């Protein structure tokens, strides 16, 4: 017998149509409990519906459509459409932080408690604050927001401060444009994040807690808000007699506000300009009070450490990077989604075995977003930890991991990131404001087919200057995507500037569209669909008119149209 039906309605599920599925099931099934849950990480198979039976079995159905056929399959526990987690994935993953994600209702404190929730807080409250800090120190937990600073140490700094008010901020700005781990945690297990914060507040003596959430995450804000109400109703924010205040603050769309001092300025209602450190936030932060900032995933780890003990936690991972890490896998691979892996796993294991990417096509991964770098396939046996990634010129970053296949241009990828950072620069430091702009212009020149070898040399030169001449992490790391692609894919830059060719056939200025008359069946679909009328009645593409929008390629039923190197007509 079916006990419960769970529909995954995190952002990824909703985007794939989960709300329609939910509505359809609700309209057609009346005698079974139907609940909304978060994300289990298998985003490629959304919408997902999980069935819980009386004897504790759980079956997950994938790609569910809001129709009777699929509903019947679910209700009859059919073998069809079941989500089978491939062995390659399940044997590599280590699910700890996301254990409850997508399994329980995010907005039910009772369910969270039934699954061991708030036991860690109770245990922490039975310890002395100092012991809690020591436990976190011993676990080896390092910040998951990118920098990798030891969390226990940060907490020790804050707890040592004497002040009437102390501030603790959860950094939920998740600015890396290709990362969604923090979103998923907040949407799926908001209580776990809050429990971590409460433990932190107890350990450090923090009085005021803030969660600074990206404006683009409405569902995360909603679920956190509900969870927060429940906490207050149950008095869980009463830490052995000391009641702490927790507030959710929504950001307003500025990447730089992920930086600590900028975030503090933004919380104070100002422009989010970073400032020089020292003084560090733990000395002088929000409104002048001592302040500690930690990332969402960092807080999400805290309850596990307290509950299971630091030693057990520290037994996972590598010497200097402990525990697991969440990665948002996306790009050119078969199974995009959220994965949780032990530190020390290799990039190749994530990309090929978990992600199912095509070994013959993958050229690199991009890790760490606009502050990170590209790692070419030949280094895929590098273990994932803070230090080995750094040595390759990438960073752990927050956990965005984008797989790049050989039909993507690395120069264009670098240009993309510089466009992002130059737009997001707050403008305070000259090198960041103008330097990133000059880098972007130079990259545009190269992808536009007008670059020279001097331009490549200029990029190398200015990269170092921007790095050294900027105050905050944004400017200091902005050149990384360029530096790392120059290091590993210099040949692609040279092809662009010397031969005026884009090897990946991506840069429009260096590409023509060619219609192969021998393959063409004269169906005229391309002519009809071309938005700029670039195709003549006798099926020749006028490349001076063509905008390279690819529409004709998409509509052609026989693949007669191809992108070819500029000037070259043959295949």
């Amino acid at each position, binding site marked *: 017998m079916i006990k419960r039906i769970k529909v995954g309605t995190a952002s990824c599920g909703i985007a794939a149509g989960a709300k329609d599925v939910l509505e359809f099931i609700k309209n057609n099934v009346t005698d079974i409990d139907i609940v909304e849950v978060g994300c289990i990480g298998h985003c490629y198979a959304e919408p997902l519906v999980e069935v819980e039976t009386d004897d504790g079995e759980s079956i997950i159905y994938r790609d569910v459509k809001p129709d009777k056929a699929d509903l019947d399959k679910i209700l009859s526990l059919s073998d069809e459409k079941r989500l089978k987690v491939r062995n390659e994935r399940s044997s590599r993953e280590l699910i700890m932080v996301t254990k409850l994600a997508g399994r329980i209702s995010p907005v039910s404190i009772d369910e969270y408690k039934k699954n061991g929730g708030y036991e860690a807080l109770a245990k922490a409250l039975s310890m002395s604050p100092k012991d809690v800090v020591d436990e976190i120190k011993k676990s080896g937990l390092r910040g998951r927001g990118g920098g990798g600073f030891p969390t226990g140490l940060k907490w020790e700094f804050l707890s040592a401060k004497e002040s009437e008010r102390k501030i603790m901020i959860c950094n939920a700005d998740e600015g890396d444009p290709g990362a969604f781990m923090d979103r998923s945690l907040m949407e799926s297990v908001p209580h776990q994040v809050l429990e971590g914060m409460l433990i932190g507040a107890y350990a450090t003596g923090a009085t005021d807690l803030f969660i600074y959430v990206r404006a*683009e995450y409405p569902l995360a804000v909603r679920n956190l808000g509900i969870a927060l109400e429940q906490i207050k109703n149950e008095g869980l924010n009463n830490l052995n007699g000391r009641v702490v205040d927790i507030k959710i603050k929504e950001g307003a769309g500025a990447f730089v506000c992920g930086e600590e001092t900028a975030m503090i300025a933004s919380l104070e209602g100002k422009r989010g300009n970073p400032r020089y450190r020292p003084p560090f936030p733990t000395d002088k932060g929000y409104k002048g009070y001592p302040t500690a900032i930690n990332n969402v995933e960092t807080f999400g780890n805290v309850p596990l450490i307290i509950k299971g003990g630091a030693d057990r936690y520290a037994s996972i991972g590598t010497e200097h990077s402990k525990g697991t890490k969440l990665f948002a896998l996306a790009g050119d691979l078969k199974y995009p989604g959220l994965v949780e892996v032990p530190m020390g796993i290799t990039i190749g294991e994530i990309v090929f075995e978990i992600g199912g990417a095509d070994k013959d096509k993958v050229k690199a991964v991009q890790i760490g977003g606009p502050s990170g770098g590209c790692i070419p396939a030949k280094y895929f046996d590098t273990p994932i930890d803070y230090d080995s990634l750094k040595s390759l010129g990438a960073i752990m970053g927050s956990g965005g991991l984008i797989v790049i296949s050989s039909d993507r241009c690395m120069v264009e990828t670098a240009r993309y990131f510089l466009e992002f950072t130059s737009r997001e620069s707050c403008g305070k430091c000259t090198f960041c404001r103008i330097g990133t702009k000059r880098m972007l212009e130079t990259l545009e020149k190269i992808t536009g087919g007008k670059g020279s070898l001097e331009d490549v040399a200029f990029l190398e030169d200015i990269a170092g200057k921007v790095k050294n001449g900027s105050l905050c992490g944004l400017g200091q790391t902005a050149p990384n995507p360029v530096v790392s692609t120059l290091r590993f894919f210099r040949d692609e830059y040279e092809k662009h500037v010397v031969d005026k060719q884009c090897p990946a056939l991506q840069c429009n200025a260096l590409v023509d569209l060619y219609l192969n008359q021998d393959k063409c069946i004269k169906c005229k679909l391309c002519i009809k669909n071309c938005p700029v009328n670039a195709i003549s009645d006798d099926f020749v593409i006028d490349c001076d008119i063509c905008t390279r929008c690819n529409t004709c390629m998409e509509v052609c039923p026989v693949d007669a149209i191809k992108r070819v190197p500029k000037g070259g007509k043959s295949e």
Partner: protein
Amino acid sequence: MLAVKDVLSSLEQDNSNLIKALQLIQEQEGYISNEAIKEIANYFNVSPVDVEGVVTFYTQFKRIKPGEHTICVCDGTACHIKGSPLVKNWIEEELGIKEGETDKDGFFSLEVVACLGCCSLAPVVSIDGKVYGNLDRKKLLKIIKQYRNGGAK
């Protein structure tokens, strides 16, 4: 609809609420008007230029009245890799406007945003907050048509 004054009076007169005030007002009116800036400056006892400074710093805030529906093209890393520049072109062509503009009937506005957090469904756009994933040109034009016909929620 609440007036700007009413929205403000629900907030404590502490400068840290300035961004919140702008967000609430934009939610009500769709954008931040000159009058709103003056009212906010008054309320928090700062100069209008300080408010304007905050407004222009954050991409969320609009100074121009948006169309009835707002299309946000995601240009995050995953979507970019999967062709979001093309998606943007298709929309620009279809609506005859560029990013940051509103079409002449005031029906659609077009914006470009960084990562909507649905990278596994790249490329994606969101219309009034509802996310549409795995787009190709056909699918996209169909969605736009649905909105024009009033068929989409």
